């Protein structure tokens, strides 16, 4: 009994760790798409952020400077995306693809040229990373069955970025639904002409959303390179930006469900890691690929409208033209 509980706790704990980068990217996409700018460049922004974090922290061994570098790099890419999609009214999908391709190429080329380790950044000492924090009373609470164990294994013992990610969920909810900025942001994604008529700048609102998305992707990248690992490696994001996009659709562009979707996809990832080679009575081995494929299959099924309908913000992907001459 206690054994099974222990295994479950460990699975949930690793699910939390694996879902944090998804959550950062998913919330990033939420701000951007709620304001009407499609963002399939989450992957690229996280990747360039991870690289900047790894590179900066290896030069100046301070995780906060690494985080700052990640945010700056990611925001720069976000601004390119914003310039193309908002100012130039270009195709937002094409721009997102460009961001992803550029990030994948630049991190490999610059990483190799600067550090000479085949695209890796140097291994970081613990002082240059975000380390795990033991929350107050976590060690003492261990002896308390269930609740104490849960507190010790799952709640405590993560890096500060994990707690920031979790705090961002209520913050995002509050920002979007309880502030005038949030109301305007959502309006600009549904009916930009109405916002414009009210005398607000569509351009400025959309840029603000895109920059917030850049900041959050930077956090996600920094988490990968200097919290979860101790260096940047080539193609470190490995599709996480796209899983986050799937989670965003799964959550129907809402913050609390986004937390749920990211945790679910993180849990699937954790389970896939654990069941490799395990024989289940009556079923035999479950191929890891089947579980890895689940987030994508679930998202397609949802998009098809068979389990509820995922309706994106109405004006998403459409450049705003003030003057239709």
């Amino acid at each position, binding site marked *: 009994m206690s054994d099974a509980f222990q295994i479950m706790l460990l699975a949930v704990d690793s699910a939390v760790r694996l879902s944090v980068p998804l959550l950062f990217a998913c919330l990033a996409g939420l701000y951007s798409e709620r304001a009407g700018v499609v963002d399939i460049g989450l992957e690229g922004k996280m990747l360039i952020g991870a690289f900047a974090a790894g590179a900066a922290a290896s030069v100046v061994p301070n995780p906060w400077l690494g985080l700052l570098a990640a945010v700056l790099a990611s925001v720069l890419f976000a601004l390119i995306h914003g310039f193309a999609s908002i100012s130039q009214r270009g*195709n937002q999908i*094409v721009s997102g693809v460009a961001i992803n391709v*550029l990030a994948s190429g630049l991190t490999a080329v610059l990483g190799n040229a600067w550090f000479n380790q085949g695209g890796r950044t140097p291994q970081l000492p613990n002082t240059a990373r975000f380390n795990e924090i033991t929350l107050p009373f976590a060690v003492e609470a261990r002896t308390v069955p269930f609740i104490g164990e849960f507190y010790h294994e799952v709640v405590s013992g993560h890096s500060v970025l994990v707690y920031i990610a979790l705090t961002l969920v209520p913050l995002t909810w509050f920002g979007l639904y309880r502030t005038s900025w949030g109301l305007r942001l959502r309006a600009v994604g549904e009916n930009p002409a109405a916002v414009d008529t009210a005398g607000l700048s569509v351009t400025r609102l959309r840029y603000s959303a895109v920059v917030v998305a850049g900041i959050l992707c930077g956090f996600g990248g920094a988490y990968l390179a200097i919290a979860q690992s101790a260096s940047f490696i080539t193609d470190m994001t490995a599709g996480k930006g796209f899983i986050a996009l799937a989670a965003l659709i799964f959550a129907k562009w809402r913050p609390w469900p986004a937390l749920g979707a990211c945790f679910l996809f993180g849990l699937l990832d954790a389970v896939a890691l654990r069941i490799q080679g395990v024989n289940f009575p009556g079923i035999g081995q479950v191929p890891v690929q089947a579980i890895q494929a689940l987030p994508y299959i679930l998202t397609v099924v949802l998009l098809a409208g068979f389990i509820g309908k995922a309706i994106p913000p109405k004006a998403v992907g459409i450049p705003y033209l003030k003057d239709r001459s």
Partner: protein
Amino acid sequence: MSARPVPVWLSAGVVPLVNVAVAFLAAGLVVALIGENPLEALQIMLRGALGSQYGLGYTLYYTTSFIFTGLAVAVAFHAGHFNIGGEGQALMGGLGAALVALGLPFLPWPLLLPLCVLGAIAAGAAWVFIPAYLQAYRGSHVVITTIMFNFLAGTLLVYLLVGPLKMTGSMAPETAKFVPGATLPLMNQMAAWFGLTITRTPLNLSFVFAILAAIFVWVLIWRTRLGYAIRTVGANPDAAVYAGISPARITVIALLISGGLAGLMATNEILGVQGRLINEFAAGAGFVGIAVALMGRGHPFGIVLAALLFGVLYQGGAELAFDKPKITREMIIVIQGFVILFAGALEMMFADQIAQLYGRLTGKADVATKASAKGQA
């Protein structure tokens, strides 16, 4: 604003060329940033790609794949859709060809080889069918679903290559070798039939298929009823309805053709070079197709030229990485990214200035302030 349109050579010739030039300039800056000389790098690339029979063979071998994936993206563009799933469709094309080659090895080659090619087309088209159907009839955005299907294709292929299709006794994730009747002849073998000797490179018969496919797409889009329907739906789906064209049906058909073209990419790599199914053989060609289609502005002639340019970049990039270890092969991906950015997302950035400059030079001050918005997608 009633402005006279700028001439076609300006909007379809000069503007795209300026965009591509800016992309290369940006890439040159990156080369300079890591402390190498961009002009010297360019020279090494050109010599490596075009300076020998060997280099040229490899260049055209890369070009072949990019023509297929570029055409695939372009056909979908003409119908107003963005098929971002060329990578997955190409992988499934390989699976289709491999299943035919491994399942019917007893057939004589004149039957087996065409069936293998058809298998590649059919599997590529089949992989886009669900996204196409969902886009057409349930309104699920094809961009998102094809991204998901790229990952699904990748995981499915890994599953099959480490499991059911894995060659017994091999450690690598690959199938058994195909029978010789299921592989395409290399160009040097074909040259030998005519008594010519050329250097052995991976260039094979599928290069001819690629050129035929480009002609096919040109005829399809501009010389057939279906092509007219595809362009109408792409330009204005509402108007298409009034013209008696079903946008849903045309969407599915155009995307199936797109998927089939992407599947054909496998004829180059799997039937032409490998002679067995291997993992991740598309190696990003599906994404290069996006850059190629944007650069070629959706026209088969432009696509062949753009594919050739990327062929030069890929082969030249390999030589460059060999000569200058500081510039790795991923430099090509950087260039690709800048091309997608400047020739795609920012395609109109310089159009106004160029049109104004043209107006000033020709003395027609009222020439369109907006260069003809012949945008893609």
